[in-house]
């Protein structure tokens, strides 16, 4: 099995696949008078395409557009500020994924709040929040629930544990997002011309291949589900080009070892048992109906939004253009703040500081010389 997995980084295989992509892209250009344009939806794909050098190798052959796949980046600033505001309550222990720590708030970041003494803990596994709550009964433990459909079932599992243990000092602040509504929004807004999607490799584990059929059926748009290693990415791009050249719209599961047709039934059941589709505010877009998930009314007692007073602050206005970056309208280096006022040590927007952020990917992996 390890030997099989190693093929995905074999330089000879990857170089051969790269050549095939170049040839097909050239044909596309001859047929259509322009480069093929594909959007990678998932932040991890943005990072992988940049880190492996695939984007650079294909810069004259394929135009890649980064999409709204970084959960922290697409969360509206008001939500970010509210979550950071939770730290003000002395009774609370805030548990969060690492990515939220350095996201700029209109006043402070969570990292700054932690440095000034607030109890904020970075967890790799959200389940740890349950044991923290059990060991700190005099405190209120809040988990900042950010993520797409890969993470949402895990948050649902958290609720299940809280229910079983009859916990009274635990809650989740739900700030989750769903993939289908944002893809529909992007296609309907038609701000960017696209020839296809590189579909998220791990969200698809939960959703399944069949969940993307609306793309070809309603929008005439293709999508290929791929993994994150160089050979997997190049294979997916090859298949997208095949579809583009045949002028066919279809969904291809190019990650069948991990993604099934129907997805993960346990995960889907858990999600829908505890959560319902809620309206969510997206950075740079505003409210999209039924684009996230929130706790069902019968589980209100675990909903941090009802338990705690939301401290609203005036959202700080900046020249940050993350809202346009996540919609694929501009490439990160086109933002006037990029690599000048905004860089990883001093981020103005989340895209520069998140491990999935487009600006961060560009800054770390795609600058030649600045």
């Amino acid at each position: 099995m390890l030997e099989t997995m190693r093929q995905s980084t074999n330089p000879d295989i990857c170089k051969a696949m790269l050549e095939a992509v170049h040839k097909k892209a050239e044909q596309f250009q001859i047929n259509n008078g322009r480069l093929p344009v594909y959007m990678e939806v998932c932040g991890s794909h943005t990072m992988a395409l940049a880190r492996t050098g695939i984007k650079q190798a294909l810069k004259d052959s394929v135009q890649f557009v980064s999409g709204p796949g970084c959960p922290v980046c697409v969360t509206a600033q008001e939500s970010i500020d509210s979550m950071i505001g939770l730290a003000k309550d002395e009774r609370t222990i805030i548990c969060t994924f690492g990515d939220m720590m350095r996201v700029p708030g209109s006043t402070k970041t969570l990292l700054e709040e932690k440095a000034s003494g607030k109890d904020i803990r970075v967890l790799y596994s959200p389940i740890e929040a349950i044991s923290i709550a059990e060991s700190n009964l005099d405190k209120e433990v809040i988990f900042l629930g950010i993520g797409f459909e890969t993470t949402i079932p895990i948050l649902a599992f958290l609720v299940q544990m809280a229910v079983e243990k009859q916990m009274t000092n635990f809650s989740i602040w739900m700030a989750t997002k769903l993939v289908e509504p944002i893809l529909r929004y992007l296609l309907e807004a038609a701000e960017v011309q696209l020839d296809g999607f590189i579909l998220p490799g791990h969200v698809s584990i939960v959703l399944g291949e069949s969940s993307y059929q609306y793309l070809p059926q309603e929008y005439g748009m293709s999508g290929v589900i791929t993994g994150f290693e160089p050979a997997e990415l190049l294979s997916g791009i090859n298949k997208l080009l095949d579809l583009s050249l045949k002028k066919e719209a279809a969904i291809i599961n190019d990650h069948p070892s991990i993604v099934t047709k129907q997805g993960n039934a346990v995960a889907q059941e858990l999600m829908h048992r505890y959560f319902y589709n809620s309206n969510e505010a997206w950075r740079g877009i505003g409210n999209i109906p039924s684009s996230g998930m929130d706790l069902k009314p019968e589980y209100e007692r675990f909903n941090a939004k009802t338990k705690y007073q939301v401290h609203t602050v005036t959202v700080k206005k900046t020249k940050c253009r993350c809202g346009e970056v996540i919609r694929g309208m501009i490439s990160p280096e086109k933002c006037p703040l990029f690599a000048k006022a905004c860089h990883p040590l001093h981020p103005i927007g989340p895209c520069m500081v998140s491990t999935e952020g487009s600006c961060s990917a560009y800054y770390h992996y795609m600058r030649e010389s600045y």
Partner: protein
Amino acid sequence: MNKVISLAHGDGGELSHRLIRDLFVKNFGHYKEAMFDASYIQLPANNIAVTTDSFVVKPLFFPDCSIGKLAVAGTVNDLAVSGAKPLYLTCGFVIEEGFSVNDLEKIVSDMANEAKAAGISIIAGDTKVVEKGSCDGVYINTTGIGIIQRQNVIPNFKSGDAIILSGTLGDHGIAILTARGELGIHVPVASDCSSLNSMLEDAVQAAGDVRIMRDPTRGGLATTLVEIAEDFSLSLVICEKDIPVKEQVQGACDLLGFDPLYLANEGKAIIIVESEKKDAVLHALHMYPEGKDAVCIGKVVKTEQPSGQLYLETLLGTKRRINRLAGVMLPRIC
């Protein structure tokens, strides 16, 4: 001796005297030196190298190593990569009230053993004891003194110079993380902490002279090479496929979202040398267990660059720029 260190051990009285005599002097063997307030030394050269370092590692004991061994090896290596022959070390201890004497003896004994292995003498020291909570167990500060017998680190870089790395990356960084036990992973890797002076002396002798040597400690290989590039106005490139990383270290990095290029190493050296001398240097390094995985990982591409840059050549053959780490490496998640 008492079981734990108390403030009385630091006040210069009977307990202090016994601690110094029965623990420090006994292990370091500097009976003569301890008779005076300073050590008298004669240096067989006019050009000397001096370095200072402080060690605050946590935990104090980790796979195959301790803060004591680290304090000696770290200081020795700073001298060795500067082209100096390390001779003497001083050490100052700041000890927290309540610290176990057994643990202190273990640390001091580790220092003595490492000093012996490296062929250096510990000739001066100091101990202070602070209130409980004022420091984390033990902090050690060192000063290292070495001599330069012949100027053999000559930074006249040329395009094509080879960048050699003496072994696998990230062993120390991951060993520390595992020992801390905070991240819920267990990785069977020991710290690579080791005094490299003999190995580097042989390597330099094999080459005649080298352009530069550095040890990639905090910040890892990437940070150290960025600094070299900036300090000497160079364009450097390293090849992803040539960088040696132990499998279990890579596995831990994959799990935690870390990049081995930025992890700390305490028993590795970077040597940049004229390309014709590359094989001789590698041969010399391979003679030592610490250097058995030594490999050429890249080269100097351009000199006299207005701003120095480090590039990584990916598996696909594309190049991307590598920067210093921005911010703390937090376990990646979304």
